[in-house]
């Protein structure tokens, strides 16, 4: 089983590469277009529908500094396919090099149980959970800005901080009473 390893390759200077995993393959494209405009470091963006990644382009794939799972809450399959992709990641990634991005969280049609499931998953993996608004360009720009912040840290270009340290601050936590039986 081809595990994606965080430290299997040498990083090249002043570049950071990010892997966006989204089964709808919709938001990841617009995010990528914004991310590559970043000028302070060269950002390589790899887009994938799900993991595992095909072996043939293993050799020319740069070292991935951050893996982002984009989950669209309005479709059940989006969460299931993201969860299924997790087992193809080397445990080393879960030290601050994985983050979850959720879209259409505000749409009322989304059942709260699905939101809880994503929150529990992110909390159990100690990784941050970001919310994005994917329909407007401002929403995409803001989401890209947040990802860029985490990417720079996990690529090690930000002095005095590491991915693990940042993830401790930003990791998703569960409200304590979520476990309690609801209502009567």
């Amino acid at each position: 089983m081809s595990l994606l390893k965080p430290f299997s390759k040498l990083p090249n200077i002043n570049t950071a590469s990010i892997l966006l995993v989204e089964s709808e393959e919709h938001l990841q494209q617009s995010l990528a277009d914004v991310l590559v405009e970043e000028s302070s470091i060269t950002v390589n963006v790899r887009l994938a529908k799900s993991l595992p990644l095909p072996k043939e382009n293993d050799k020319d794939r740069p070292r991935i500094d951050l893996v982002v799972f984009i989950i669209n809450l309005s479709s059940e399959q989006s969460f299931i396919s993201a969860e299924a992709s997790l087992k193809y990641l080397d445990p080393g990634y879960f030290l601050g090099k994985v983050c979850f991005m959720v879209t259409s969280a505000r749409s009322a049609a989304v059942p709260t149980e699905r939101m809880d499931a994503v929150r529990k998953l992110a909390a159990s993996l100690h990784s941050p959970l970001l919310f994005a608004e994917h329909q407007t360009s401002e929403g995409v720009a803001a989401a890209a800005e947040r990802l860029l912040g985490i990417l720079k840290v996990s690529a090690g270009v930000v002095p005095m901080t590491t991915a693990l340290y940042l993830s401790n601050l930003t990791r998703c936590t569960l409200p304590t009473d979520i476990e309690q039986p609801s209502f009567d």
Partner: protein
Amino acid sequence: MNDPGKCLLKRVIRRIPANMLKTTLSHWGRVSDAQLQSVDFTTSKWALTEKLLNICEENELTVKHVTELEMIHVIDYPNLGMWYAFQLFDPDDAAPSVDMTQFKEQFKFHLSKLMRNVSVKIKKHTDEAIWIRVAWGDGFSRPNHMKPTYVVHHLQSSYVFVTRLTSKLKPLLSQALVLSTRYQGIKDANLSGRNLAALRNLLMRQYQQVFSTKFSTPLAEKSENISNPQIEREQAESATKRHQMACEAFGDGVLPQLQSAVYKLETKFRDHNNKTMTDREEPFKCIVKFTSTNLLESLRHCASSGIASTPVTPLLSSVPVKGRNYFVITDNVPGSSSQTNRPQK
């Protein structure tokens, strides 16, 4: 002009869009150019109708002439309801040589034999399509021109398209069609939709199908072109394979506009984690109806985006392949292909 003629004319004028009214009337040829000039087409439809009514009175036009006008309009704007496709089968040897005049006489002769007062108007359109307008009158009353049936047929092609036909009158029309085209029988082609051209293109295969040919032209690549070297799609190859299979199943480019497909499923329930239902004898009866503004393009996008798995299941791909959008699926035929399959594959 009698009353039916008047109200038919009112309805036709109301239906023809204002900007098309002048050309349609000149195309009709029953109104002289001078009279056409005298009509001010910018006024309200109500005033226009009154003016045209007077002109028709002047030219002593009868309801028959007005039906010609309606026919010209319907040929330009055919999508005024649901069109149903029928298929003639087992042609006898004289069928290939039936020509327009023969067909016209035979059809009128047979139909009037089957039902006394019925008014039939047959017109050949430039694209070799024969348009038939039938106004039915039951036993005693005169033909009702307000509820005509329209029939479109290409000679020597075995397909007939019908709209606004009541089930009571269907056997009469079928009989007349069979006798006048010298085929043995006619049956429902299980294809219906609101867009006549789409049904015809689908059955006459006049849309861009995709085959893997020796010099395969590159398929219209999906919208995003990754110009930026820094963005790399990991599973690009499997995405193009999915897109290729989707186009092979449903066709490329703009597809005929079907609105819906209906599947009547009467197959056994099979689910590995539900033993009780799987052992059940009787079939699990349900009806699935897909609807969209352009069904074939929606299904193609399902396949290319991976929502529907590829290769596409024969149930979905047989809509374009067999030119049908109504299926009854049962278990007795292996691979649950449709039970009422037609002799012509």
